């Protein structure tokens, strides 16, 4: 299950991209590509465990 705060956007945070990129609606900014793997629970990653932004938003 992907993070509920994950969205893919081409605009936001004062920036614009040709291809939609991972955007964190909790932090209100585009996230680093490596962090997007956490958002998407790819490989051995789990947003509920590995992401401090998610954990803070859920507290």
């Amino acid at each position: 299950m992907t993070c509920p705060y994950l969205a893919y956007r081409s605009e936001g945070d004062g920036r614009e991209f040709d291809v939609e990129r991972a955007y964190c609606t909790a932090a209100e900014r585009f996230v680093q590509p490596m962090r997007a793997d956490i958002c998407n629970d790819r490989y051995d990653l789990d947003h509920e465990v590995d992401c401090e932004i998610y954990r803070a938003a859920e507290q």
Partner: protein
Amino acid sequence: MSYEDFLEGRPAIVTAALTGGVHGKEANPAIPETPEEIGAAAAACREAGVSVVHLHARRENGERAFETERFQEITDAVRERAPDLIVQHSTGGTGAPLEVRRQPLLTDPAPDMASLDMGPLNRYDHLTSENTRATVDALYDLMDERGIKPELELFNSGHVTETYELLERRDLADPVYATLIFGGGTLTRPRPRNFLTSIEDLPEGAQFNTLGFARHQLPFATMGLLFGGHVRVGLEDNVYYERGELAESNAQLVERVVAVAETLGRPVATPKQARARTRPGASAALPAGSGHVRVTG
């Protein structure tokens, strides 16, 4: 390698880390992400004096990719535009299992070199890139099988010790080629005394590459040049040219460090010279893409 190597004018190998896998265009729009962008960046860096390109693969949206097919697209784009460059694939992969991290080593031809992270590295607040000894050994064995020169990435002094441990477990081809990494977090604290200690602690005959993150890129590259080492620059490690001013391109960072080398009187290695220095058991005239040739050192 030492100050004597500087005095003797031994060529310095310049590596460009073009893209990385942590930050992307959200940090600096000049970071190349597609195969076409990475190929063009490699060619520009070749013109500026680079002999090695350190490559990661990305999806179209900039996110990390590990699949052999994606690395193949990127490495083909680089070789098409700059056929004599030494191609170095990353095997780093925080949170990715070993089977995924093996994929960049399986292109045809194999990369000339590949990175080998020598131990743990903290990421964010709750994550560690583990790089266990079992992982290091498995990646090393596949590199050895495919004739790929390992570039040992030493995040801190503990990883210098791990290099000696690896030498006990495996017969590393000469010379040991290690990148000393300086910066925040788990990395060696970027101070000159730590740089000097690190280079003195390396195994006999090892060649070192100097990597300073962010604002430490240029000062540590300069120290690397002065003490007979090689240097790595690029947008993977530093997105700024000066404080508050984003770099315009990878080539801009390369041009600056090459100018420093020239000012200091340190020659910059051509790709042919770099092949001879990193793989003395192989012919310096190896054609590009010959990373699949088994090298014994």
